[in-house]
């Protein structure tokens, strides 16, 4: 079943994707599968182990399930401080 996910990008992901966010149609079940799809589309090559993902404004694990209408945020490797 196809879902519509609102995906947001930050920092280098935003620059590579050329946009802050987009509505993304997917059959992926988890945020990890969705991330793999999106990496190909936008050419992200940052190691996934150093990236983070949030859903509906909470950090989640990569095996978190996505549902139609979810807001998913992809964070490239952080560099605060």
């Amino acid at each position, binding site marked *: 079943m196809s879902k519509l996910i609102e995906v947001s990008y*930050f*920092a*280098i992901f935003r*620059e590579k994707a050329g946009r802050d966010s987009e509505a993304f149609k997917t059959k992926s079940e988890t945020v990890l599968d969705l991330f793999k799809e999106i990496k190909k589309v936008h050419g992200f090559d*940052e*190691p996934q182990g*150093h990236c*983070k993902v*949030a859903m509906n*404004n*909470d*950090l989640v694990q990569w095996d978190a399930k996505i549902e139609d209408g979810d807001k998913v*945020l992809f*964070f*490239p*490797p*952080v*560099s*605060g*401080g």
Partner: protein
Amino acid sequence: MKITDKEIKIAQASNGLRNKRSGAYVSFEGWIRDHNEGQNVRRLEYEVYEPIAIKEGENIIDEAKKKFDIHHASCIHRSGLLDIGECAVWVGVSSSHRKDAFEACKFIIDEVKCRLPIWKKEYYENGDSGWVNCETCASN
């Protein structure tokens, strides 16, 4: 945990941690250096995703309070454009005894740098700019 696009008022922030039963106070400040990995840095920009940066910063402070015998702990991180020499991040911890204040302060800044959705973009003297790799990634 606070995010601000204005100068961090350190004296004011550290005053908030004072109390009559605390004997020790340890603070960390991260300053913008004029160089990084061989390039001359002119200024720097922090992008912060505030809702999660604040939530995760509060989590880190709560964890520090559980792990160490401390009274108060606080962290302020800058967002937006910063010049060389400015303070990008401040952590302050007060406790009865200094060992816990040192350890908690180090724990908080280590975790803040790893876990908060904050990204640093450097603008170099030669006109280039670039997103900085995280410390952990750089060491891989």
